[in-house]
């Protein structure tokens, strides 16, 4: 080939021909796949907690257990009487916006999943339930309110849902911590694979690097060629991982939404979450570039 109009510049380091490229693309693809699934899990748990918080914010429940030492008619009547007193008291408390005692029909509807259609709830010692809406900005002392309520209606107990929510949040936090550890480990393993592959490549390219040094190339010149090459591998590996991860996330989501009870089904990834996940190839590209750049710089320092 003589005197063509345009000949693309070839890179001095023959990195594309190294057979470690495919290995790294697969490793990075797997890492990004795990990363995407775990990240979507973390984001979904976050969304779940937010939904739970929203749903119970400003909501308190009072439960009145019918006295057990009476027959059911007297017991029901006592429970109803305590309910009336409790409602009257609660309506007088500052910061409480709405007090709604649940009717027998509403109670029956709540218990229906456990007892079925054939049971007459009025014949059962079912507790009375009062639903309370409070001003979210009001500073209510729930311990004091609970004590005051007990003087009016001794069998009444107050539940502001904090206890079970805190347990769920602690569980979710545990999941998030495990997920974060996985993300860290996946990043570390990927960086390690890039580190060793780069070092191996530096060995293979030693004679070319020596010539580049002798003609005056600075370490950054060589490191940039490596970083560019590894950045492309990181991006392609990331795209491969994401292509497998997206259907997997939808599949896991469909399994979660099939669970009855309305807890897990409340989880959904927002657009910003999807943007995070779809940006993972850029992240893997960045990790590959930075790891490679500093690996090359550190290794070349040992050469003259």
């Amino acid at each position, binding site marked *: *080939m*003589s*005197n*063509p109009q345009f*000949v693309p*510049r*070839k890179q*001095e380091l*023959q990195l594309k021909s190294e057979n470690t490229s495919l290995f790294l693309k697969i490793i990075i693809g797997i890492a990004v796949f795990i990363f995407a699934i775990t990240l979507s899990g973390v984001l979904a748990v976050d969304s779940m907690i937010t939904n739970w918080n929203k749903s119970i914010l400003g909501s308190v429940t009072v439960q009145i257990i019918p006295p057990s030492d009476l027959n059911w008619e007297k017991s029901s009547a006592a429970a109803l009487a305590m309910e009336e007193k409790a409602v009257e008291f609660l309506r007088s408390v500052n910061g409480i916006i709405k007090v709604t005692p649940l009717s027998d029909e509403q109670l029956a509807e709540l218990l229906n999943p456990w007892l079925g259609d054939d049971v007459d709830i009025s014949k059962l010692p079912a507790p009375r339930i009062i639903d309370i809406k409070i001003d979210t900005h009001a500073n209510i002392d729930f311990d004091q309110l609970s004590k005051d309520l007990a003087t009016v209606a001794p069998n009444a107990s107050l539940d502001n849902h904090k206890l079970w929510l805190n347990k769920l949040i602690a569980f979710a936090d545990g999941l998030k911590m495990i997920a974060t550890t996985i993300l860290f480990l996946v990043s570390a393993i990927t960086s390690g694979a890039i580190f060793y592959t780069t070092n191996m490549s530096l060995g293979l390219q030693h*004679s*070319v690097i*020596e*010539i*580049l*040094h*002798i*003609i*005056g*190339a*600075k*370490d950054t*010149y060589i490191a940039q060629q490596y970083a560019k090459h590894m950045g492309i591998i990181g991006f392609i590996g990331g795209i491969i991982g994401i292509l497998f991860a997206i259907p997997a996330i939808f599949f896991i989501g469909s399994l979660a939404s099939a669970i009855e009870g309305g807890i897990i089904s409340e989880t959904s990834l927002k657009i910003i979450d999807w943007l995070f996940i779809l940006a993972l190839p850029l992240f893997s590209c960045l990790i590959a570039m930075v790891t490679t750049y500093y690996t090359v710089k550190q290794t070349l*320092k040992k050469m*003259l």
Partner: protein
Amino acid sequence: MLKSKENIIEMNNVGIRYDQGPEILSNIKLSLPKGSFHFLTGQSGAGKTSLLSLMYLAQKPSRGTISIFGQNIDFAQRSQLASFRRRIGVVFQDFRLLEHLSAYDNVALPLRVCDMDEREIKKRVTEFLTWVELDHHMYDKASTLSGGEKQRVAIARAVINRPDILLADEPTGNVDNIIAGKLMKLFVELNKLGTTVVIATHSEKIIRDFRYPRLHLQNRGLHVYYPADTSFLGDINV
């Protein structure tokens, strides 16, 4: 910048050994003034290539000190070494071209590592490859060139940056007498323009035809002969 009478390379009590072996060069003392021209001679295995490699900063001595462009390399920063190397042109005995690159890209290398504009690179590379009569092989891969053609590409690469020092290891070893003469004239021209030149050679004819001082390696030491007086002059102090 160095003043004209300053030494461009200085070596003091320099020794080289590989691994735990014996020293192949011992107590080398050398001062090369800016703008000088020297032949480097010695039998095969005398250490010519090793001495040259010290000069182009490819290795450090096992002992002693080397100063280049007035700077002791032991105290030079890493980036400074790269800057020094850009001012040194090297022609290797085995060419050391990047075989997968074209003649053009090989010659362009010293300019590219300096981030020179590609248009300026094209102008200069074309000029130099035409000068070494390889313009018709400009875009041929180095691996497809003959030994003599590779030699000329290596020379073009070494001088394209207009170096302050030109170090050549057997530069005429793979070319015929006519091209060898032309190459030597190039080196002389470069020397007249201020480039300090050291040429390792076995060719007595070249040494005879171009009457420059001769650095001779013998018994692990360095000795100097001047063309007018070929008697042994003891340890070098050029």
